[in-house]
C-alpha cells in the first residue's frame, strides 16, 4: 500500500474520532455556560448548573431509580443468559436451532416495536407500568447479549478440564461450580457491565413501560421537549461521565481478568 493512501486513511480515522467526540465535548462545555440561553459563543462560565442538580431531589431520585433498575434487570439477565448459554453451547438436541433463534430475537426487534410489544404483554399479564415492568423489559432485552458473550467464552473451555474433574469424582454440579463458572467469570462480568449500560441508557422501553417516575433518559427527554437549558447539559454530562467511566473501567478489568484466567 502506498504511503499516500495510508496517510489519507489515517486522516479519515482521526476525522471520524472528531465526529464522534466533538458533539459530546460541545455538549459538556455548554453545561458550564453562565446564561439560560443555549448557544455559542460562551462568554462567561459557571458551576451553578451542577450545584443546582446536585441539590435537586428530583434529579437525584431519578438517578437512584435508574441505577436500581439497571442493577435489578442485569441480575436477571445474567442468570438467565448464562443458563441459556450453558444449555446451547456444545450440545446437540432437537430444536436447538429454534431455541437459539428465539434467544437472539429480542436483540433484533427494532426499539419501538419491542417497546410496544412489551407494553401490550405487560398489560396482558396485568402488570402496571412502573419499575417492575421496566426491569422486566430491560432484563428480557438484555438476555441475548449475555447468552452470546457467555457462549463465546464457554466454547473455548477445554473439555479435558471438566472430564478431569469428573474423573476425580466431582458430580456435575460441583464440576460446574468449580471449573466452568470460574472460567466464565470474565465473560459474565463483561456482559453484566454491558447490560448495566444498556439498561441505564435505554429510552424507548423505559418511556413506554414507565409510570409516573421517569428514568434518567426519560427525564432528559421530557425536559428537552419543554426547551433546552444548560441544566439539561449538566444532567446529561453526569449520565455521560457515569457511563463512560464504568465502560472504560469494565473494558480494562475484563481484559485483565481474561488474561489471568487464561494464564
Amino acid at each position: 500500500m502506498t504511503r499516500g493512501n495510508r496517510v489519507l486513511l489515517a486522516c479519515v480515522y482521526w476525522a471520524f474520532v472528531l465526529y464522534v467526540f466533538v458533539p459530546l465535548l460541545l455538549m459538556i462545555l455548554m453545561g458550564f455556560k453562565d446564561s439560560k440561553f443555549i448557544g455559542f459563543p460562551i462568554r462567561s462560565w459557571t458551576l451553578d448548573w451542577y450545584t443546582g442538580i446536585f441539590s435537586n431531589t428530583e434529579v437525584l431520585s431519578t438517578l437512584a431509580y435508574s441505577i436500581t433498575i439497571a442493577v435489578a434487570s442485569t441480575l436477571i439477565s445474567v442468570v438467565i443468559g448464562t443458563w441459556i448459554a450453558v444449555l446451547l453451547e456444545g450440545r446437540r438436541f432437537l430444536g436447538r436451532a429454534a431455541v437459539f433463534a428465539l434467544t437472539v430475537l429480542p436483540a433484533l426487534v427494532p426499539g419501538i416495536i419491542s417497546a410496544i410489544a412489551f407494553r401490550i404483554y405487560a398489560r396482558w399479564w396485568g402488570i402496571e407500568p412502573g419499575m417492575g415492568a421496566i426491569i422486566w423489559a430491560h432484563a428480557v432485552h438484555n438476555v441475548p447479549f449475555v447468552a452470546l458473550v457467555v457462549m463465546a467464552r464457554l466454547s473455548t473451555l477445554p473439555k479435558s478440564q471438566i472430564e478431569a474433574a469428573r474423573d476425580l469424582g466431582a458430580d456435575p454440579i460441583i464440576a460446574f461450580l468449580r471449573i466452568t463458572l470460574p472460567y466464565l467469570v470474565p465473560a459474565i462480568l463483561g456482559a453484566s457491565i454491558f447490560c448495566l449500560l444498556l439498561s441505564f441508557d435505554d429510552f424507548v422501553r423505559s418511556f413506554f413501560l414507565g409510570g409516573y417516575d421517569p428514568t434518567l433518559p426519560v427525564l432528559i427527554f421530557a425536559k428537552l421537549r419543554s426547551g433546552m437549558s444548560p441544566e439539561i447539559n449538566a444532567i446529561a454530562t453526569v449520565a455521560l461521565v457515569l457511563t463512560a467511566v464504568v465502560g472504560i473501567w469494565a473494558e480494562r478489568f475484563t481484559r485483565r481478568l481474561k488474561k489471568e484466567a487464561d494464564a
Partner: protein
Amino acid sequence: MSNDADAQARQTTGAQTATDRPFWGRVAVWRPYRMLVDLVTASPRRQFLILAALPVLWVLTQHLGPMVQMLRVSLTDAYPVAPGVEQSFTFDNYLRFFGDRIFWQPFFRTLMFASVLTFCTLILTYPVAYFLARHVSRKNQMLMLLLLLIPFWVGEIVRTYAIMILLGNTGAVNLVLKWLGLIERPIPFMYTGFSMGMGIVYLTALYMLLPLYSALEKLPKSYGEAAADLGAGAWTRFRRVTLPLTLEGISSGCTLVFLISTGFYATPVLLGGPSTTVFAETIAGFFHVAGDAWPTGAAFATIMFATALLLTAVFQRLMHALRKGDTK
C-alpha cells in the same frame, strides 16, 4: 446408597487443595445436597430436561410471547377490552394502514431513510475499519478501537441532545461557518432530514464498524500482496480481493444498522420536523395521545417488523448470491 455417596464425596475432597477442602468437602457430603445431585443426575435424560426447562420456558414466554401477543391484539377490534364488551376478530387494523396517506407515507419514508442511512454509515465506517484492521499495529488497534467505543457507551438521548447543540441555529457548525465568512445568517439544519440523519448515523455507526472491522481483521494480508505481485493496482486489489472477502461483514453490519434505524423513536422526535415524521412516531401515537388505539398500533408495528425482516432477508440472500458468484 449413603455409603456410595460418602465414598464419592471422599474422592471429591481428595482431589482438592488443602485450603478449600473443608467447604467443598462439606458440601459434597451434605445429605440434602447428595439427594439433590442424585435427583438431578439420575439419568442423562433427566439431567438434560432439568437444564433445558428454564431456558426453553423463558424464551417461549418472554422472547416469543410479546411478539405473539402483539400479533394477536393486532387482529382484534378492541384492547384493552372494556368490561362487558365482546372482543372480536378483525382485519380492519391492517386495512386502516392502506386507507390513509398519513399512515403509509411515514412508513415508506422510514424504509427509505433507513436504507439511505445504512448506506451512508457503510461508506463512512468502511475506511475507518480498513485503516484500523490493516494499517495499525496489534497493540494500537485495541487502544484506537477503545477510543471509538467510549462515545458509544453514552446513551441515545444524550447523544441526540449533543447533535441538537451542534446543529442549532446558534450551534457550533453555524458559528464556525459564520466566523469563516461563508454565511451571513445561520443555516437551519435542525428539524430536517439532515439533522435526523446525522443523529441516526451517529447512533448506529458502531454497529457497522465492528462487523466490518472483524471481517477485515480476519483477512490475511498476504492476499493483497499476492494480487500486487500479479500486477493488480490498489483499486483492483480492493475491488477484486478485499471487497468480495468482506461481504459477510458488510452484510451483517448493514442488516443490524437497518433494523436498528427503523426502530428509533426519540431521535426523530427531537431532531426531525413535521416533514420527517417516521413510522415509529405514527405507531407511538396509538399508545399515547388521544387516539388510544392499541390494536391499530399493534397492527402497524407488525407490518413494520414483517417488512423490515423481509427486506433484510432479501438483502442477505442477495449478498449471499454475490459472494457465491465472486468465488466462482
